[in-house]
């Protein structure tokens, strides 16, 4: 393989430190939000006994799913031996670690007893997907860390393929686990399906790659390093495939549910009668998240870098909305304990549950995003993660 020079980002300009500081500020706000929630209890949030998991979980699950997908580029390089992806691999690995860190922090800090994390790490119930997730997430950090090491340290370079394969299999298991968190719940009609695991996997591919593309383009544009069209076009085509696959899964899931009479009511809720959730589903998840990006990327606009970035941003936005609909929409629809009967109670049975996210929840979620980006911004300054140049000529040499 032709040698690619990896070089740290200089990171001494005012803009760099402003970015660093800005992200740090959001991390601080996130910490303050957690402190308030922990002190006063969840009464200050919009979550209640009906909407049990709210905005923090939307952010957390999105970041975790994206983290797994962000490793894709590196996997394609090491596991599937595509030479063009090899220089892209280190950034993919660090971004994956950073996103996972951000997502996990939000998840853990939203716990009702976040001071009891040690209990969660010492008491296990092996029938619970959450317990498996504790191991899967910790193992993820370990394996991807080792994988990154094999990419950076020439003396262990030969283990890169083995480490990459292990990380690849591990993260497929991890994302299956994340999807199964919901898939294993028989109580709610919108959960309790095996579809959720592979759907989460394909969503991870799309969201992870979209985030990776944006971070890559921003890093190269803001450091003045050349990023050629060969790389951009290849990644863009990959994103098209992933987004199309996400759309396919969503269509199949809803078509199947619509076939069962017993699911007609809940499907009508999501697709037609659910007010904000219906809007979010059609406009946010389908149009903004899938259709418009596909149109942009498949048309002539997809050759322009600005439009590619717009498409990536829309995919990310659509992904957040999808998580919102999946996590909160499913809770908004009441449990059907007595099918065919109208239910009423003082505990909000039988009625659609409203949810208004609160400020602490929003800032906690944004804090997780900020930590992920902060870690990435810092890592590319102290480690040799970014190739000095990714112009077409350099990349073309790799293909031999």
């Amino acid at each position: 393989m032709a040698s690619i020079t990896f070089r740290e980002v200089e990171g001494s300009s005012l803009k760099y430190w402003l970015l660093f500081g800005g992200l740090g500020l959001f991390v601080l706000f996130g910490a303050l939000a957690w402190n308030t929630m922990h002190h006063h209890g969840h009464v200050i949030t919009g979550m209640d006994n009906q909407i049990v998991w709210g905005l923090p979980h939307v952010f957390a699950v999105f970041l975790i799913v994206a983290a797994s997908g962000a490793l894709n580029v590196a996997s394609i390089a090491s596991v599937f031996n595509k030479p063009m992806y090899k220089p892209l691999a280190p950034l993919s690995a660090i971004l994956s670690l950073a996103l996972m860190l951000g997502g996990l922090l939000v998840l853990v800090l939203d716990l009702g007893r976040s001071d009891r994390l040690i209990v969660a790490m010492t008491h296990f119930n092996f029938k619970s997907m959450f317990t498996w997730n504790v191991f899967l997430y910790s193992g993820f950090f370990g394996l991807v860390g080792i994988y990154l090491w094999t990419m950076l340290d020439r003396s262990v370079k030969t283990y890169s393929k083995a480490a990459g394969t292990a990380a690849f299999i591990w993260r497929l298991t991890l994302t299956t686990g994340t999807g199964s968190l919901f898939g294993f719940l028989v109580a709610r009609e919108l959960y309790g399906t095996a579809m959720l695991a592979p759907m989460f996997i394909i969503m991870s591919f799309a969201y992870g790659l979209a985030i990776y593309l944006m971070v890559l383009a921003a890093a190269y544009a803001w450091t003045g390093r050349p990023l050629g069209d060969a790389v951009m076009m290849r990644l863009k085509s990959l994103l098209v495939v992933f987004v199309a696959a996400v759309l396919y899964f969503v269509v199949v899931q809803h078509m199947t549910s619509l076939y069962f009479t017993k699911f007609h009511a809940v499907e009508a809720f999501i697709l037609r009668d659910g007010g904000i959730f219906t809007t979010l589903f059609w406009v946010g998840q389908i149009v903004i998240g899938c259709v418009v990006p596909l149109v942009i990327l498949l048309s002539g606009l997809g050759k322009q870098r600005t439009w590619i970035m717009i498409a990536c941003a829309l995919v990310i936005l659509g992904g957040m909305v999808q998580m919102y609909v999946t996590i909160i929409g499913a809770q908004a629809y009441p449990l059907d304990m007595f099918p065919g009967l109208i239910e009423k109670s003082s505990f909000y049975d039988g009625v659609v549950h409203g949810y208004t996210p609160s400020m602490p929840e929003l800032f906690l979620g944004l804090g997780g995003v900020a930590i992920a980006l902060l870690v990435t911004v810092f890592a590319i300054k102290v480690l040799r993660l970014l190739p000095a140049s990714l112009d077409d000529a350099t990349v073309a040499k790799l293909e031999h």
Partner: protein
Amino acid sequence: MSELKSMSDNTPNSPERRRFIGAAAATAAGLAIAPGVILVEVAHGRSEEQGASSAVRWGMLVDATKCATGCNDCVTACSTENGWTPVAESAHPKQAPQWIRKLELQDPLTQMETNLPMMCQHCAEPPCVDVCPTGASFKRADGIVLVNRHTCIGCRYCMMACPYKARSLVHEPLNDTQKADVPRGIGCVESCTLCVQKVDRGDGNTACAEACTAAGHNALLFGDMNDPESEISKRLRELPTKQVRADLNLNLGVRYHGI
């Protein structure tokens, strides 16, 4: 030798006969007293050192035909016994815990109405126990499903998993208003405990069932479903009963008649 033997067999005062009569008398006395002894044990509960046993399965029979519209006695009794604020008095009703609530059901075709109390169904195969990451949600040997608040981390996964919306999160600090017998706290999840504090000290009944009986409705009957002679077992053999969401096959500890 044989003479001695024949003599001992036949005489009224033979040692064997005395032994036999003594044994028979003891057995008869024991049989007479034993039911009383067993009854006394049930009424006064187990001794302190004895833990919950799987020989017992606590359960409840709800007769929805006897449940009165607009009556909230069971809810009031539960909130008084266990120390939670009734939702009507709560400053944040949507975040207020409700261990038991009254459900009003209506058939849209016939407008026929049914009332019933809904609480933790104490499943034999509880989904909440399956999903709890720390094992805080657990089923005790005698069938009562509980939250061990020492290990609960407040993740609310059990609340997502419960098919009956039985669980509540404590959203705010309780400021030492808890009952001494019923510890509960901020950030932990809770639900109906079948008044485990009363069961363990031998009261033999739950607050809700006591209140319903005291009010004369007799819609709630608590007891040991493993004991064929208990009141609840006898009634379960007389009345047709159903489990809510029976298709989930969770083998519930709460059975309903009249739904």
